[in-house]
């Protein structure tokens, strides 16, 4: 792979951003990723509120009330592909719809009325109340309002301190959500939750039914999921979280802190797992079986892996033939996802030439570099101009990313596969690996690209 012509450090982009872009094997320094986005840049990043919302919204039977002007609620209304096996409450959009008067005189009273009316209409087992830029700015005390409402209605009304301006980094919002979750699951005085042999699955959002896939595997080897954080969860199930004997952590960006808190408060150990890709799935199942250490479980796990691998490998082989040697780029929200995709694309025989995230941490970027071939570009908080430049320079065939990258990739004549929190297709487990391969194949090899021949670079 000849990448000598690319020196990311000398990119035409923004000079202040040169430390946010690295070329593996070339750059001496480490990546700057905790920097705030530059004022005036076209960032793909969002805000604290966004981070909190994506983590909590999959709690299915809770009412999610956004305390702010209407946009914050509208723009986050049912945008995740998190599925529910029961209540659809979480797919409604509640907003206090703050008006000028509320900004001037404070919105606490309106918030309290909204909570009262939601309780009156729906009697949800819990209400999450999200603060936004404005409610935070004018100093509405949502903690006090929630506390009073909790007492008034004898139900959980949980404040989520997610004012957008606190940071441009979604990770801060993940923390706000995590704090809210810990508040929700903390047993009331005098109550205890009995330990079971079940496990919690943290950082699993049941996109396209992914939690259900893993649940089937675990059931087969003899373990039940206590509750997932937060895919297809209910308030009652979350409150049983202390009863698990193990926590699995999948999406590290959002859930490591929760795992550590659960360990501290309830003594539950945790394991990092990853169910994206056949190899990762097999490895994670083995890790879990090892933890329980029961010979029967280990035997069943090996049998499951053998059976599933035998079933899917011939199919993957077919896609591998079509995709081997194609060049891929990855730009996703967090490093966990980037790692997962790197593994899967490598399993398909593809070359990864560009990787980036919106919110990766330094250690995570260091880890990424070790997975990638020399010459691969690594980029933090990319703007579209940078993405475009490297996609073209690196002659990328297919890109994995989120909603904003999709249309950019298409315009450049590059295939695209959705691997963000709003995707609709389950990509976890053995069948997920096949589905992922199929998606990569469909977009990379669609006959539509040949229609571009007259003008395109794919000619």
């Amino acid at each position: 792979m000849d990448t000598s012509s690319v020196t990311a450090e000398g990119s035409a982009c923004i000079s202040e951003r040169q430390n946010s872009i690295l070329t593996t094997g070339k750059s001496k320094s480490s990546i700057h990723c905790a920097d705030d986005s530059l004022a005036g840049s076209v960032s793909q990043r969002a805000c604290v509120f966004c981070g909190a919302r994506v983590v909590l919204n999959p709690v299915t039977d809770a009412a999610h009330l956004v305390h702010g002007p209407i946009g914050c609620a509208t723009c986050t209304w049912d945008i995740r592909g998190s599925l529910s096996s029961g209540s659809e409450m979480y797919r409604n959009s509640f907003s206090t719809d703050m008006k000028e008067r509320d900004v001037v005189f404070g919105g606490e009273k309106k918030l309290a009325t909204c909570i009262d009316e939601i309780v009156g209409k729906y009697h949800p087992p819990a209400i999450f109340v999200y603060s936004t830029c404005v409610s935070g700015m004018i100093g509405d005390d949502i903690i006090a309002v929630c506390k009073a409402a909790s007492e008034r209605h004898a139900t959980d009304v949980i404040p989520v301190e997610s004012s957008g301006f606190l940071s441009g980094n979604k990770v801060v919002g993940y923390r706000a959500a995590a704090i809210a979750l810990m508040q929700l699951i903390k047993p009331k005085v005098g109550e205890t939750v009995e330990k079971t042999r079940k496990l919690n699955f943290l950082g699993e959002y049941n996109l396209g039914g992914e939690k259900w896939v893993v649940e089937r595997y675990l059931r087969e080897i003899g373990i039940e999921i206590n509750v997932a954080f937060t895919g297809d969860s209910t308030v009652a199930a979350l409150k049983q979280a202390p009863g698990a004997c193990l926590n699995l952590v999948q999406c590290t960006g959002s859930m490591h802190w929760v795992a550590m808190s659960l360990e501290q408060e309830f003594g539950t150990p945790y394991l990092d797992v990853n169910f994206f890709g056949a190899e990762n799935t097999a490895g994670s199942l083995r890790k879990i079986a090892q933890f329980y250490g029961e010979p029967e479980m280990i035997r069943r796990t090996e049998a499951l892996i053998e059976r599933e691998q035998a079933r899917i490998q011939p199919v993957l082989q077919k896609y591998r033939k079509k995709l081997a040697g194609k060049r891929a780029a990855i730009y996703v929200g967090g490093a966990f996802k980037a790692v997962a995709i790197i593994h899967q694309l490598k399993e398909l025989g593809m070359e990864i030439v560009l990787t980036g995230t919106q919110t990766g941490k330094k250690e995570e970027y260091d880890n990424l570099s070790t997975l990638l071939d020399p010459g691969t570009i690594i980029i933090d908080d990319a703007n579209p101009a940078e993405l475009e430049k490297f996609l073209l320079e690196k002659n990328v065939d297919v890109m994995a990313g989120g909603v904003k990258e999709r249309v950019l990739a298409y315009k450049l004549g590059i295939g695209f596969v959705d691997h963000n929190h709003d995707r609709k297709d389950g990509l976890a487990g053995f069948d997920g690996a096949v589905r992922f391969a199929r998606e990569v194949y469909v977009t990379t090899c669609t006959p539509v690209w040949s229609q571009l021949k007259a003008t395109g670079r794919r000619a």
Partner: protein
Amino acid sequence: MLECIPEGPVEHTTGKINPAKTCQPLGAMYAALGIHGCLPHSHGSQGCCAYHRMHLNRHFRDPVLASSSSFTEGASVFGGAANLKTSIKNVFAIYNPEIMAVHTTCLSETIGDDLPNIIKTAEIPEGKSVIHVNTPSYHGSHITGFSGMCKAMVSYLAQADGTTKKSQMNVIPGFVNPGDMREIRRIVDTLGVKMIMFPDTSNVLDTPLTSKYQMYPDGGATVAEIRDAGNSEVTLALGSFASHDAAEVLQDKCGVTGIPLKLPIGIKATDDFIMAVKDWFGVEIPASLTLERGQVVDTLIDTHFHYQGKRVAVFGDPDHVIALTEFLLAMGIVPVYVLTGTPGKAFEAEIRKMLEDAGITGSKVKAKGDLFELQQWIKEAPVDLLIGTSYGKYIARAEDVPFVRFGFPILDRAVHPLMPVVGYRGCLRLIEQISNALLECRDRDCLDEDFELVL
């Protein structure tokens, strides 16, 4: 599946459940994209900018670029002036647009940033422009924000070079799709009148796939064109909520006569639009347009028995809903629930007048409403058809009502931004969608013995 809405009357006096609008900055961003070589800029925290880009992106399925002042806690405490000045410097240095269109957010409004002064004292490269509009999210809706940005275009850019006017007209098209703007241009071209349309997102958000990415696509009204709008004889402002204000400002500032019209959706509103051009410029109406109109009438007669007398619920942006209601009445359809999320008493008054003229009583009409309320109405007394944005799909499924997608946003179907609903061609599309939705429903639900090949 989604039967969360409780039955019977419940207290819903404050806040919104399942909103039928979004906030001002989104509309301002969309309007700004209709200026050629423009980078919209969101003066606030990053989330707003990211969300609005994503929302537009999902509707248009084309890249939407906008920059942000990237507020953090510091800016929120000390004011955003430094962030905006740095943004202006960075935007021109890095992205080099012709013009930067700044809109505020609830955050910068609450802090009280003084935009005119910040912009005046910012370093703006020679020949480049920065315009701004105040769009606090706690006021109005995305339509108000769109209107505000149109006003900003006029007040910052339009100029009258003397008292003599050029034989040309301005059209302010409202918050419509690029396909609609393209159709408006086609009609005006057919009439042979020179037009400046702003904003114009055709060739910006409906660009062809060439495997080359243009940060600033070929489309959009140029700064020079918007400047020259001050020399036009007349402005046709399509839609009272999105476009009339800008036309008024242009009339006051440059003496360009403003003619307020509806969005040209439906036969009558299209007739009015074409007649306004004809009357002002004295042009003949070409046979091709007369033919198009005749085809619409012919199609209406061919299909009227499919929909006449049906009870329909309509929701969406006010200008769209006003024009569509007029067309539905002309088709013999009965709008029983008419709702918009945007505030405005004028909306209710205008719809009520239309219903009254048509002799229809008992309909519910509401501005500043939400979809919770609409669904409650439908639960109380069902309808035969629902027309509105993608958010209507929850109601359509829960209440088992055929559904026609119309307006902004449409997040779950493709191609619609390219297909006009304005003009006579738009009439055909609406007739097709409405008839087909009802007929699909009939085919799905009827007994075997009633299942017909020919309908």
